């Protein structure tokens, strides 16, 4: 029994009390830095609404080491409940209308809706087909549109940065 008590007794000394003034000072500094860095972070949920995959390829490119959208506090998330931006590509096919609406409903408010690519803006070359709605605005009101077929990753990044800039 004594053997067990001895074994359980910690070898380390009791913890010293932190200095209250130091804690306050550090907290203030952390707050200022966190607001500058983390306050600007936005999480993106992408929905492919039936595009050709060209826009997805350029979205993937925004994550590479030279464009590196992570350095701006931007990042893609899987769970729409954690997202600040709903980024939609594709002409919004009729088969994707319900999936897009359901994903949209899961985003917390306030959130941004961003249409990326000519298809997402107004249906692009697929406008008028029986199988497409003709752009995101047929179902949602996008806050920002990035046209292009497909837009370059720099253009997509520039759109995302303007959403960051309005946070200031």
């Amino acid at each position: 029994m004594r053997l067990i008590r001895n074994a359980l007794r910690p070898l380390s000394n009791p913890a010293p009390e932190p200095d209250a003034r130091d804690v306050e000072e550090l907290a203030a500094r952390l707050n200022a830095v966190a607001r500058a860095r983390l306050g600007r972070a936005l999480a993106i949920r992408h929905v492919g609404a039936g595009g050709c995959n060209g826009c997805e390829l350029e979205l993937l490119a925004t994550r590479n080491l030279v464009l590196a959208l992570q350095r701006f506090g931007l990042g893609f998330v899987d769970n729409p409940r954690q997202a600040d931006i709903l980024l939609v590509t594709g002409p919004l096919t009729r088969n994707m209308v319900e999936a897009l609406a359901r994903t949209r409903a899961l985003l917390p408010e306030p959130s941004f809706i961003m249409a990326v690519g000519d298809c997402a803006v107004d249906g692009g070359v697929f406008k008028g087909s029986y199988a497409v709605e003709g752009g995101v605005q047929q179902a949602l009101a996008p806050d920002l549109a990035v046209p292009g077929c497909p837009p370059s990753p720099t253009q997509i990044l520039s759109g995302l940065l303007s959403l960051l800039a309005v946070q200031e």
Partner: protein
Amino acid sequence: MIGAAPLFSLWAEPLAVHALVLDPAPRMISLPAPERRFPTLTRTHPGAVMFERMIHDLWGLEALGAEDGRPLLDHGRWPVLNPLSGRPVRHAAPPPQPEFLTAWGEGVRQFPIGPVPPDIEEPLHWRLHLLGEAVLRAEAQPGFAHKGTLGLMLGKSARAAARFPARLAGDATVAHSLAFARAAEAALGVTVPPRAAALRRAMLEAERAAVLLLGVSRLAEAAGAPQLCARAALLREAMLRACFGAFGHRLMMDRVLPGGVAQDIAPEGLPMLLGAMAAIGRDWPWLLRAAKALAARLAGMGIARPEPGVVAGGIPARAAGLAWDARADDELPPRAAVLDSADAAARLWLMLAECDDALRLLRLALDDVSPGMASAQASSALSAPVPGVAGTGFALVEAARGPVLCWLRLDEAGLIAQAWLHDPSWGHLPMLETALAGAELHDAPVIRASIPISASGMDL
């Protein structure tokens, strides 16, 4: 009708069904369907089932004797039924619940993924049946990216319709554009000027190299090899920037047109392309070392062989011992490597080997292009006139993922009367379903990345 020859593609027009078989050379077989019915091929070619479901959705032709009559692309959400049948019926009923093949047993549960899948992906639904962490059955539901592409092409001239095959699959835009252009040229009897042909070869191989680097990057990402993922993505970016400099578009969309090419290579683009290729060459030994470490982990994972009676083509088939490459009869054929372990490791090695070979063919194509750089080229060196006459033609082109097919029928005015665009995903999606069955759930994203699928390419 088609005997024992392996089937590559199956499609239709309002009153006929067409098949492309490898016999061993590609050969087209047509079967009239005057009663809007045709005998099912699934008895001899079980892998034809997805094609027959798609033919029913789009053209309204019934495969007599087929066991699986479920719709594939039509989710009951279009305003019409059988949109390409020539007599589409209005449709307003509420969409039905999709039906999936099941797996029975105590403790079996369903696991749905998509059509809004994790990360940056195309819309596709997966229905997995799990027992514990083991996947018993994996079934994909395509159709979410169906845009009515074939219907949009009808009634347009070959030049005007070229923007649709260019947007069938973003990672094969050059390949689909080239197959479409060659099919139109075969139908109309057009010969492409030699400079345009060399530029087309350069763009096709540049696209293949860039897409294969993306494939390596995504497979490394899924398998948890972040350095290889980042390096391959960086080299892809270098290629795309060089393609922008040379051809004015990062993905080279709309650069290949019926008759030739849209524009010449920019003079400053050639050194950019050579620079990107040199950067890849410098990193190649590092990539191979990193891939070797990754391949050790991928060995034996995701065994995938083509469905019975079907020839899928592309890297998944060449990793399973089937050597066919649509470029085999080209003037400068590829140095095709074939492996037969059919696992994710074999597919990783072939992605790298074929990327290396694409760069070799790109260099040869650029050698043919560079002498004409000094002077501005006449437009006749870049494009031949496209007459407005009737004709039928098909063409096969090897994209990074596998062979793409285009078949066209043009009327007397040279306008498109019927069209078919085949993406290699038709062969690869069933292979991926087989590869996932029997895998562990946590391996599923790795196996999926080892067989890249274009949802849009298949959904039309």
